Every structure is written in C-alpha cells, then in structure tokens.
C-alpha cells in the first residue's frame, strides 16, 4: 500500500552516514547531473516528471526553476524550505532526521539547474536535532568533495549553509522566509517582484520544500517517465502524508498520489481509536477545509481534493472523532493564526485578532446572536485580501467548519456550551 521512494531507507539508522547513503545509490544523480547534463536538461526532466511543490501550494517544480532569468548577471540562490510549521505536518522533519543526504543531493541538483553556487536550507529553530543531522550531512558532503569547489571535477562550485529560524510559522511562507534569512523580521513581501526574479538579497532565487527537493534525485536517476508513471494524470509520483489525531496508528506514510484516503486512515492508520467515530478530516494541514466522513474515499491528489472542497496542502491528515467539539478545534486554530500573523497587512493582522475574540467567546459560552454571520463576513473580508496566504489559511478552516458543522456553532450560541464536550485525557 505504501510507495516507499523517499522513505525507502529511513528505517536504516545508518542512512544518515554518507557512506551508507552512497552505498544505497546516493549522490549518483548529483554526479550524473554534473558530468552529463546541462541545466536546461535538468529543468526539462523535472518539468516532464510532473513533480509539484510538496510544501502546500503544489506548483510544478520544474516550472518554478525555469522562471529564473538566465541572462541576469546577479548570483542565483537556491533555498530549501524546511520551516515545517503547518499544524499536523511533520514529514520534512523525518527526512531531515533520517535521510538528510537525500535533501543535500536534491538541493545540489536544483542549485545546478538554476546555476546557483550558494544554497541554503532554512530549518525551523525548534528543530535542533534535524538541523544537527543536516549539518552533519553537509559537513560529510564537503569532506567527500561532493560540495565545495570543482565538484566531481566538473568545475562546478556549490556551497551550502544550514540556517535555523527563531520560531515563526510565517517564515514557512517563501517571501517571509527570505526576509528572515536576510536577518529581517519575517514579514511577507509583496509580489511582484517574484523571488525567481528578485528574491534573496535582491537576486533570483528558488525556494523549494524539503520533500520536493528530495524527489529530484529519484527523477534524475530513474527518469521523468518512471516518475510520472506513478500517480494520477496531473498529480504525479508519491507523497508523504503525516497522519495524526484520533487514529490507532499515527505516523508518516508515503503513498502514490491518487491513493484513496480510506487506505491511509483505515488500512495504514488502523482506523479510529477505540470508542471514537470519525467526524471530520483535515486532509492537508490545518489551513485546509474539512472533509466529512462520507468523503473518506476521496483520492489523495491535488485535483480530487480540490473537487472535494479541500486541498492536498502539505499532506497532513488530521483525523477528528465525534468526541470533539468543532468550535473548540477552530478556537485552537484561530488562536494559532492570530499568534503567527506577522502584522504587516491590515486584514490579517486585525482580522485574525477579531476572529479569535469572537470565536473564543462562542467557545466559552458567551456567543451572541449574529456572531456566526459576523464571523462569516470577517472571513470574506480576509480571504484573498492579504499580502500572503496566511490570511486565507486562517479563514478557510473556519468557513468550512461553519458550513459543515453549523449545528454545533448554533448550539454553542443558543445553549452557551458545547454540543459535544471535548474530552480527551492523555494516558
């Protein structure tokens, strides 16, 4: 049921060492690229493979690379986005902790494709151990002259810096990440200019998610056709899913895109915890709209989930049981988004704060008639009106919750308490 491509060796504790990694075929793709490929060929291959951004937006990776202007005399930068902070998501962390060299290799190839000689991996600050693993991998790669000057005798130079953040969800948004990497406050930038034209230090920059980059060596080694043979028509290859919530066997699972959600939840995840019945599923990280139990057979791919009214997002599947108050869930989330709003644009800065106040009052039994309509109206005034996607991320689950679980919200306002009392004591 699992399609172990990126996770093939993650259960081998020695995979973190460069020798084991290479014995498993690691850095072959990097060598192949440097010895026999032109940057455009690499971009073409990745374009053909159909690899899409695994951070949440799903933008085709090869296409993103091709936006870097070739005639721009400025240096180019590749940045690997390892600021994994979307609630529910912990897939990149696994790759960093257990197969860090695969990320180094992916970054190296991507850097070459855009002719960058300096690549960064921006890891969220709380990930001290994953950062250590990445640092070790980079160090080992330098020692083997897989990074540095004249790599594999090709004349190509590439340096790599492991950079850690300081605790800010917003830095997972690429322009905020670039500001943060420049030492600024992690506030989002307006686009245009897009990072591909004017990114880090004002230079052309590509920002890719960890998992996206980890796919790249496999595409180079096995060819675009092999990769695109997996998945659906528009969602190619495999993807990591972080399964959490009221589930028997939570964990990270790698599935071919297009696999039904039920396979993940029931077959791999072992179904709901005893005594819990499925009530809602967040399929792509906390920013994505909910699915109802009857949608459990939806296919896990970009298009199918969009059709089902949600998003594939980061692939963080959060399973919620019938012993959970949906207002309480939203209160948690809006508190989070308000806490993480950078403060740059008005609708997000003020809107998330206001929403938190109204939602919190409802959850605490002090909701007032008209509050739901107010929330809906505030959501409309935020959605699509902000500098970066954080505003959308904050309101999409709220809108979805109000649509799918309106009875619970109404009950809260009418009876000043939860319809379903959230009760979960840890063991």
């Amino acid at each position, binding site marked *: 049921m699992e399609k172990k491509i990126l996770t093939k060796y993650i259960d081998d504790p020695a995979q973190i060492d460069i020798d084991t990694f290479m014995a498993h075929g690691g850095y072959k793709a990097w060598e192949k690229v440097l010895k026999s490929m032109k940057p455009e060929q690499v971009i073409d291959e990745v374009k053909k493979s159909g690899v899409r951004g695994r951070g949440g937006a799903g933008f085709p990776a090869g296409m993103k690379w091709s936006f870097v202007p070739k005639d721009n005399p400025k*240096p180019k930068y590749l940045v690997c986005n390892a600021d*994994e*902070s*979307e*609630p*529910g*998501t*912990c897939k*990149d*962390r696994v790759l960093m902790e257990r197969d860090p060299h695969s990320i180094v290799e992916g970054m190296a190839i991507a850097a070459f494709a855009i002719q960058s000689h*300096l690549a960064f991996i921006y890891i*969220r*600050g*709380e*990930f*001290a*151990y994953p950062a250590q693993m990445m640092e070790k991998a980079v160090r080992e790669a330098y020692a083997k002259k897989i990074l540095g000057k004249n790599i594999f005798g090709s004349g190509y130079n590439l340096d790599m*810096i492991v*950079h*850690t*953040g*300081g*605790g*800010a*969800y917003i830095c997972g948004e690429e322009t905020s990440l670039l500001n*943060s*990497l*420049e*030492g*600024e*406050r*992690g*506030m989002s930038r307006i686009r245009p200019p897009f990072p591909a034209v004017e990114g880090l*230090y004002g230079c052309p920059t590509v920002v890719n998610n960890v998992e996206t980059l980890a796919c790249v060596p496999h595409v180079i080694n096995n060819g675009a056709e092999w990769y695109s043979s997996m998945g659906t028509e528009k969602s190619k290859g495999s993807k990591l899913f*972080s*399964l*959490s*919530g*009221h589930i028997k066997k*939570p*964990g*990270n699972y790698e599935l071919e895109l297009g696999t039904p959600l039920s396979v993940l939840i029931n077959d791999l995840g072992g179904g709901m915890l005893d005594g819990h019945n499925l009530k809602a599923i*967040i399929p792509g990280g*906390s920013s994505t709209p909910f699915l109802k139990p009857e949608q459990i057979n939806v296919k896990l791919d970009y298009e199918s989930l969009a059709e089902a009214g949600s998003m594939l997002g980061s692939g*963080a599947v*959060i399973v*919620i049981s019938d012993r*959970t108050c949906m207002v309480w*869930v939203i209160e*948690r*989330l809006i508190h*989070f988004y308000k*806490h*993480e709003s*950078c403060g740059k644009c008005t609708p997000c800065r003020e809107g998330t704060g206001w929403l938190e106040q109204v939602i919190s009052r409802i959850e605490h039994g002090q909701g007032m008639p008209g509050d739901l309509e107010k929330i809906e109206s505030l959501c409309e005034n935020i959605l699509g009106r902000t500098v970066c996607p954080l505003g959308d991320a904050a309101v999409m689950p709220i809108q979805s919750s109000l649509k799918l679980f309106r009875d619970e919200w109404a009950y809260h306002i009418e009876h000043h308490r939860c319809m379903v009392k959230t009760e*979960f*004591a*840890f*063991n």
Partner: protein
Amino acid sequence: MILNEKSIAEIKGKLALYPSPKSVVLPALTIAYRQVRYLSPEIYQEIAQVTGLSEVDVAGAASFYTMFPKEPVGKYLIQVCHNISCALLGADSLIGYLEQKLEIKKGQTTPDGLFTLISVECLGSCTTAPMMQINEDFYENLTHEKVDRILEELRGKS
C-alpha cells in the same frame, strides 16, 4: 560582556559564511540563546557590537521570533505543544498534569529554578502527539508514566 569567547567566535564564524552580515541575526541570537538561555537588551547590544549591525536590527528581529525566551527561565524549559494534533490527544490534560506535578501554573518557574512550564504552537511532532520540548529535546507519545520518568531523570541530573 555576557557573551563568552566561544559564542563570539561562533558568531564571527557565521559572519564569514553569508553574503550579507545581516543574515547572521538569527544564528547569532541562537548562539546567544544557547549560552545564556534567554535574550535581553544587553545581549542585543553585544550582538550588534560583535556583528557591526545596528541594535534596532538585532532587537527588532529578536522581538519578532517567539522561540527565544526574553526573560530568565528555569534550567529546563518545558514547552508543551497545544496545537491541534496534540490538543486532540490531550495536550490540555498533559499541561494540567505537569502543573500538578511541578506545583506551578503554566507560565511559571518552580521555586528551585529547575523547571519553567509554558505551552507553545505546533512543534512539528504531530504524529507522535502529545509531546513536549524540554530545552532542545523532543519528548513524544507522552503518557503519565513517561512524564513522571522524564521529570525524575531531569531532577536527578541536577
């Protein structure tokens, strides 16, 4: 100087890596945090001095990022994730249990200065919820027994 020679050398080492000196703000704050365990205006001043950056750049950035405590904390900073995946699996009762065990409220430090308890947003450990981070280490799939054992071990170490 509050920063020791090792920290200063590390910060200077970072300066050499980046195309722009300002990029060392977060690395420098991290280095200072690891040494001092919390950040303060004095630290910002020292970092500004060591890096040649302006104080407003250092202090302004530091205030934006929530990971670094801005006030003294206990020897062990316990950060319990209270975001959705952990909350679904009892983060609130975990916090309650810790409050009871440590005899403090969330946000407080034990009188012996050993533990500070706070709750934080998602730490990227959702499939192993509930969890907490103590200083830089993650403790996952927490149960009462596990928490007891962890606290005991930490108490024993000091």
